[in-house]
């Protein structure tokens, strides 16, 4: 039998608050996608089906919206995510070396990807580790990140 997705009690409460904050229910597709992704760590088909049913919109609409945004993922992610900014200010300050460093040192638990400007150009080169910004990276900071992730 197909697994049914259910929101956690905490999230259920948040959902009823969310419904009152927007003029039309359809508007909460993004907040709900975040809620499901935060709960499951990715967007499952059942999770998106749940959103479609809750908001009375076609499943394809939910999937189409989710697939437009780069931060939504559709498979179980690795334990950690390192996003290395590759855009100009970071590139001018050694983003390539940062990416190569992580590629070399990180084990299979860590997904290392390149992303576009994270709005932290003053702290170039930078990356986000599990969503947390790490800026003005130097050797010591890179090592500290590895230690934190236990690679």
């Amino acid at each position, binding site marked *: 039998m197909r697994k049914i997705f259910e929101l956690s009690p905490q999230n259920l409460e948040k959902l009823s608050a969310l419904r009152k904050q927007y003029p039309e229910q359809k508007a909460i597709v993004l907040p709900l996608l*975040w809620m499901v992704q935060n709960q499951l760590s990715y967007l499952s088909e059942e999770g998106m089906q749940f959103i479609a049913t809750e908001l009375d919109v076609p499943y394809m609409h939910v999937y189409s919206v989710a697939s437009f945004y780069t931060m939504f993922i559709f498979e179980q992610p690795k334990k950690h995510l390192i996003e290395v900014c590759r855009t100009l200010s970071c*590139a001018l300050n050694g983003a390539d070396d940062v990416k190569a460093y992580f590629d070399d040192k990180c084990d299979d638990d860590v997904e290392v990807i390149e992303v576009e400007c994270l709005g932290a150009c003053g702290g170039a080169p930078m990356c986000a580790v599990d969503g947390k910004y790490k800026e003005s990276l130097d050797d010591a900071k890179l090592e500290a990140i590895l230690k934190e992730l236990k690679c």
Partner: protein
Amino acid sequence: MLVKIVSKKFDIPNAHTIDVALEHGAYSALEDSLVKEPKELRDIIIESNLRGKGGGGAAAGNKWNLAANQPTESGTRYLIVNADESEPGTFKDRQILAKDPHLLIEGIILTCHAIGAKSSYIYVRGEYEEFITILEGAVDEAYAKGFLGNSKYGNIDVVVHRGAGAYICGEKSALIESLEGNRGHPRLKPHQPESEFYFGEPALVNNVETIASVPFILENGADAYKAHGTEKSPGTLLFAMSGHINNPGVYECSFGHSMLDFIEQTGGGIKNGKKLKAVIPGGASTPIIPAHLIKDVMMDYESLRSFDSALGTGGMIIMDEDTDMVKALKNLLHFYHHESCGQCTPCREGTSWADRVMQKFVDKRATYEDLEILRSVSRTMNGKTICVFAPACSDVIDGFLRHFEDEFIACIQEEAC
């Protein structure tokens, strides 16, 4: 040169919490302004010549009037604050979100009153998770202290809405689409001045810093704001410096100062004692300016326009003498290729084609024909699309070719020999 209007509380520890913010004058513009007629507030903003700080530099007062005067049956209007901040080189709005969110909330209450809105949404880029947490904390505090919600300050509601990774959602109509629960596709709109529309009701979209400038202006008057900057570019901007610069960061500066002085004095000059080669003056989408022209550039809208560039967001990317311009353009075209929303053929195909051609330059496989292809792709992207993303990309290419064509030709010749 440096001024503290919007950045007044940036250096005060914990100014993001309401008690500290209140100690330092937060919400002090409300009392006197909210008893004034909305039109009176709009007139002050018009008089101040406040210009939008999200990149376009449109007159804020005119936009407020459009939103306030747009007929609506239900009487509902919205204020939407653009905190999508994804333009490479730009990292100013996050300073406000993280260091002085109450200034933004104060600006929202005032702006809502001025245009007759009761609800406001702050659309923040998804990656700013840490700053969203701070902002949400500040909004909760503002509710608890009676500045938002059921209060004597006009019953304004504020909702923080998290984006999910899409540069194009910074474009105002794409942002509204996203806020309605759709893909972030810019809307095809008539070329006439009108307000934006959220679920069919009039809406005003302003940048974070624009709204954060409002409390000072309404509290101190238009003249106090115009005392800074130039006649056509009044007031201040949170200018940012990144790239090859000794003191990267965000600095509030009045308009009209020499860009070179700013780079040398405030920025501490070029890293490693090198020479300046070029500056991208206002976020990646503004055309590059070579060093020999920089000494004449003033940091205001008009001066930058006269150098075939634009002030944009004021986020300056600084490049030293060793920067490879071919690689720099390739880096940016990769960005445009990645971020095109895909609705318009010239943009979807053009950004990817230009990116591929630039890869040939980087690999030293390019020919003179590729240079022509790059130019023609750029021409095709200009003026034929739904939003100005593609024309901006075209301007970026043209800027590099205008000033650094020799480096592209050197690449071709290297291939030949």
